[in-house]
């Protein structure tokens, strides 16, 4: 387990799962969950590099910032989703993109 590659693989799998989710899901919130997976995988990489790069804590800072970004993104994205839902009464993203008021 004390190997960078392990973490990178896990992160890669998470990443591709996230991409899969983003691509295939129609529900806005589900897409968001996919994005969270991707962000998590990125974060895992940051921290892993930091750990194996001589316990350089810059990676942690990046991780922290990514988490903050994720929070901000989730807040705004969900607000948008809610807004779309308000207006179009659906949160399926492709429907939402085609429907015009």
């Amino acid at each position, binding site marked *: 387990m004390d190997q960078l590659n392990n973490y990178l693989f896990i992160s890669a799998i998470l990443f591709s799962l996230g991409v899969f989710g983003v691509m295939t899901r129609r529900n806005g919130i589900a897409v968001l969950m996919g994005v969270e997976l991707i962000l998590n995988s990125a974060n895992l990489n940051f921290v892993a590099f930091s750990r194996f790069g001589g316990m350089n804590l810059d990676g942690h800072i990046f991780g*922290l910032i990514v988490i*903050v970004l994720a*929070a901000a993104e989730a807040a705004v994205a969900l*607000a948008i989703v*809610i807004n779309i839902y308000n207006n179009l009464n659906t949160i399926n993203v492709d429907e939402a993109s085609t429907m015009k008021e």
Partner: protein
Amino acid sequence: MYRDFGTVFFTSIVAIIFVIVPLVIAWLVAPSNKTKEKLETYECGEVVEGSAWLQFNIRFYVIALIFLIFDVEVVFLFPWAVVFKELGLLALIEMGIFLLILVVGLAYVWVKSDLDWVKRRVRYGAGRYSKIAMDQDK
């Protein structure tokens, strides 16, 4: 660190076991007599009208949203607080700016009354007479 958090892991497992054991005991000795009525939802003895799984009000969401932002802020406060005594004035100023910006946010949502749980529109109830009463009030 592994040990510390390993303990957390094992504690969770113990917690799960601790919940399962009485469930097993209950499964063994507790009577179980599932009738259709028993498994119905309780609603003060009335027949349930509609499911409880409705979408519920947006206020919960707004609160959760504002919470999230402030939660992040608190997260940043922690490492700052740890090193605060070492860095002294510098940290104070930096965090002062950080917090002030967020206080602006708080003030914004406060003024825009997003923090109010319910924007109450009634004063005398919403019955037929409310208008009369309100007019008199003026």
